[in-house]
């Protein structure tokens, strides 16, 4: 019979060990920091389960928007693998990353190489790529009003006008999420002035400097200011988040289309019963920009798997290698959707819409690396985030949305540029 003192001392010791956060597992753990939450996190867990059996336990750590904070932490507390949502962070933090062996055939195309390789060493393996120049729409609505998918910006403006006169709100804008309005603007800028976009992307100009930024903003304002163009008006658009916008187009059937990246398919698969009405068209080229021929913008983002350098990274390297396999994300693609593999050798069972998007990226990359642009917000630093450019665009939406002829779009665009200049100055 254990006497009381020994029992209490034992309990206290066990309690202290638990309190200090010791985990005494029998298998080693690999902590994977991911920017996903909700359904995407579930999908990633399914991917990890699909990699089993493993010699170690994988623990996803959802960090949301704070993934960058991982690199400021004490080494013992850092996760082992990080899925970095902004590829620019890999280069900035490469001092804390372990270098990875470069795959023999480099199946990721030309667009990733400059950002992930430095001094001949590879610091990250791309896992997921996001196609951001996509507009999702309800096929039945366009058929009903006798319209077809717009290929040019002017056509799109006309389609919106017809829809509004047909009695259907054309656009559901997700104004509550800064990144959604930023993506919209970046598409317009990349289509209207690809050179300016490239200048901003490489860091040789600040956001408020190129004059094309102001004209691109004015173009965007034209679309937003059209009478009845925004479902829910300004107040509705400013409080609507991305997933809600998708749901209101396809389930509640209140609007006709939404500008959303490819991972809108996740939301659609979760909430929409009958997906035969779901259509997709690529973001139109801007035809009156004086560019001949007018080229469609192609803005992409992605998630890169990196290994944090620590004493023992063997398991982490193993996990990253397994994630780099062509069939690793298959469970995400088949069960959840909304995933485009960065590995261009992969031919996963995409849905019809995503198949088109994947081949679009591949073809553009084959034509030349300059045809594919990475998301600007990553390259612009602090101002590119939702606090800077996102906030300015939300203010722009509030001032311009749905006002019709009663607003001077050029002047409002100039105000936005001044606001951006003030943020950077």
């Amino acid at each position, binding site marked *: 019979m254990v006497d009381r003192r020994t029992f209490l001392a034992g309990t206290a010791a066990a309690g202290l060990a638990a309190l200090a956060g010791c985990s005494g597992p029998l298998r080693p753990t690999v902590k994977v920091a991911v920017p996903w*939450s909700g359904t995407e996190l579930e999908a990633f867990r399914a991917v990890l389960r699909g990699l089993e059996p493993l010699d170690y336990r994988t623990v996803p750590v959802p960090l*949301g928007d704070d993934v960058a904070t991982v690199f*400021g*932490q004490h080494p013992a507390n850092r*996760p082992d693998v990080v899925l970095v949502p902004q590829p620019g962070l890999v280069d900035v933090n490469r001092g804390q990353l372990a270098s990875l062996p470069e795959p023999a055939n480099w199946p990721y195309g030309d667009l990733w190489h400059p950002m992930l390789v430095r001094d001949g060493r590879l610091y990250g393996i791309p896992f997921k790529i996001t196609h951001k120049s996509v507009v999702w729409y309800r096929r039945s609505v366009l058929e009903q009003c006798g319209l077809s998918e717009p290929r040019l910006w002017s056509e799109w403006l006309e389609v919106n006008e017809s829809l509004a006169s047909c009695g259907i709100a054309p656009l559901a804008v997700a104004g*509550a999420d800064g990144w959604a309005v930023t993506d919209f603007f970046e598409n317009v800028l990349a289509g209207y002035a690809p050179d300016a976009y490239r200048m901003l992307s490489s860091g040789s100009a600040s956001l408020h400097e190129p004059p094309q930024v102001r004209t691109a903003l004015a173009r965007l304002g034209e679309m937003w200011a059209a009478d009845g163009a925004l479902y829910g008006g300004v107040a509705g658009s*400013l409080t609507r988040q991305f997933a*809600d916008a998708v749901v209101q187009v396809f389930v*509640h059937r209140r609007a006709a289309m939404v500008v959303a990246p490819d991972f809108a398919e996740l939301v659609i698969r979760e*909430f929409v019963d009958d997906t035969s009405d779901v259509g997709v068209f690529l973001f139109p080229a801007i035809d009156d920009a004086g560019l001949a021929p007018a080229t469609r913008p192609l803005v992409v983002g992605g998630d890169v798997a990196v290994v944090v350098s620590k004493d023992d990274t063997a398991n982490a390297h193993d996990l990253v290698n397994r994630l780099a396999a062509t069939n690793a994300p298959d469970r995400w693609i088949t069960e959840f959707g909304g995933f485009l593999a960065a590995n261009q050798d992969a031919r996963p069972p995409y849905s019809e819409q995503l198949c088109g998007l994947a081949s679009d990226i591949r073809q553009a990359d084959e034509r030349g690396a300059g045809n594919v642009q990475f998301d600007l917000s990553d390259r612009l630093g602090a101002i590119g985030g939702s606090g800077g450019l996102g906030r300015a665009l939300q203010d722009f939406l509030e001032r311009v949305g749905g006002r019709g002829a009663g607003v001077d779009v050029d002047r409002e665009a100039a105000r936005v540029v001044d606001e951006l200049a003030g943020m950077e100055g």
Partner: protein
Amino acid sequence: MALLANGLRIEVVGREITGRPVPGKPRRSYGPYLRGLPALALMSVLLVPAAFTTVQAFRSDSGIWGNFVAVFQDQDALRAFGKSLIWVGVALAVVVAGFVVALASRRVPRVWRVLSPLVIFPFGVAVLVSGAAFRLMFDPTPERGTVTALVEFFFGGSPQWLGPQLFWVVLISAFAWTWLGYAASLFRAGLDAIPDDLPRTVKAEGVRGWRRLWTVELPLLRTIIGVVTLTLVVAAVRLFDLVLIGVPPSMHDDAEVLSLFWWRSPSNDGRRAALALLLFAAVALVAVVGVRGLRRSWALPDRISTDSGAGTVAPKRSALALAVAVLIGLLWALPALVLVATALHDPTSAGLYGWWRPAGIGLESLSAVLAAGLGQALLVTLLIAVLATVLVVIVGAVTAHLLAWGGLPQWLGRAALTGFAIMAVIPVQMYADPLRSVLSDVWLGASPLSLGIVHAAAGLPFAVLLLRAAFAAVPPSLIAEAVHGQATQGWAIAQVSRQCWPALVAVAVMEFVLVWNDFIVRFLIGGAGSTPQSLVLWGEARQFATSAGPVAAAAVLSSVLPVLLLLATWSTVVRGLTVGSAP
């Protein structure tokens, strides 16, 4: 000893000591001061980072006041100040409303007995949860939002509740829902403790209505008014979680109160430290004023007598009061009903349609959120809360006994009281940045142990104030032997604690509930990877409207324990909170 003289027998008769023993001057040992060391050690966890922040606030490129000048010249900062001031007004309105409710509740005693758990339980619910509930209710989509659907049904069109013009309705409703019950309960306890004959005497002398209220009840309730106003005003100035979750991120600009403005300021900036210091100064001012008011007080009797003997006039039944009471009960139960009903739908139906649709009822949301790690998060939270509560009760009792009976010089006692009052309201912003950088550099990190200690340090001042008031009200004969050195101080503390057990229970329950429901400390200080339940809820809420199912499920699961605990012990907690302090 007797003396006989001229047939007169003179005896010396002993008399029981009355009044508080006055410590004799020569007896100034160091024992008492040693007992103040645990409190000092625990408070230094917060005081040292706060000192760092203060130093940083005064360090700038343009002289000592450079940062403050920059803050006052910033239009956004001034707007944030203004909004915080408006919220102070809201808090005062809630205090007044609570008093009115307490007055009216005396007319409907039976209904009040049923109503009071409904009105009190929001206090046990985390601010994050109440913000989530109200954002769900005010969802602008008519298919989903309760209020939107009702307004559309009756008026044929509903405004955008979460939009730039009306989001404040959502926030103020959530704030009032949480705090009104607390205020009303405490006021009701105070009103009940006024001896019956006093108002009757005054009434017989012809003083009625408002004058009676002004001359009799209000002065007697000064302590409680002080406590309630202090708590509510501090809560209003430090508003953070509610704004963070109650409105979409695009509205954070418009809803920006001071603490939110601080959060959005770039870190490593002297101005951020200056903002924290200004926030601290504002609440400290309120605290000092409140403590001064608390010193002149009416000592309430220990037991609240509910004698309804002959001679007590039955309260007038009022149909109006009954109707209002029922309405209030329904209103108060609605957010909880919305949360529970939404949690009991599967994620797809909850994200698309409102809780009133029978289709889609199931437990999938609950299982989804448990699979996302909520179960372990709840255990971690339990660990943190228990650790913090135990630390606060033990260190608080020792320190309170020292302040009440330890024989400290009077100036030191008063200074300590004021110090604790100020520390009780210190905002997280004063110590968050330095603590976070320290914790992320140390191998222990933001583990349950370190977070528990931080929470304990934050909760200690309030506990000390409360316990000291309770201990000082104890009759001195109880511990006369300890004071005169014939028994150990430990025995004295045990005796006093046994006598004042309602206050100890009140402190323990309040600390547990507050730490369990905390969000801001873990959000600002806990680093990546520490996952108490509030952070899991916050993670689920990123795409709010379509994740209504998991969000509601997480909210419900994390509220069960504190609400049950609070409801089970509420009468004891009220007794503990309203014990008077002898001057």
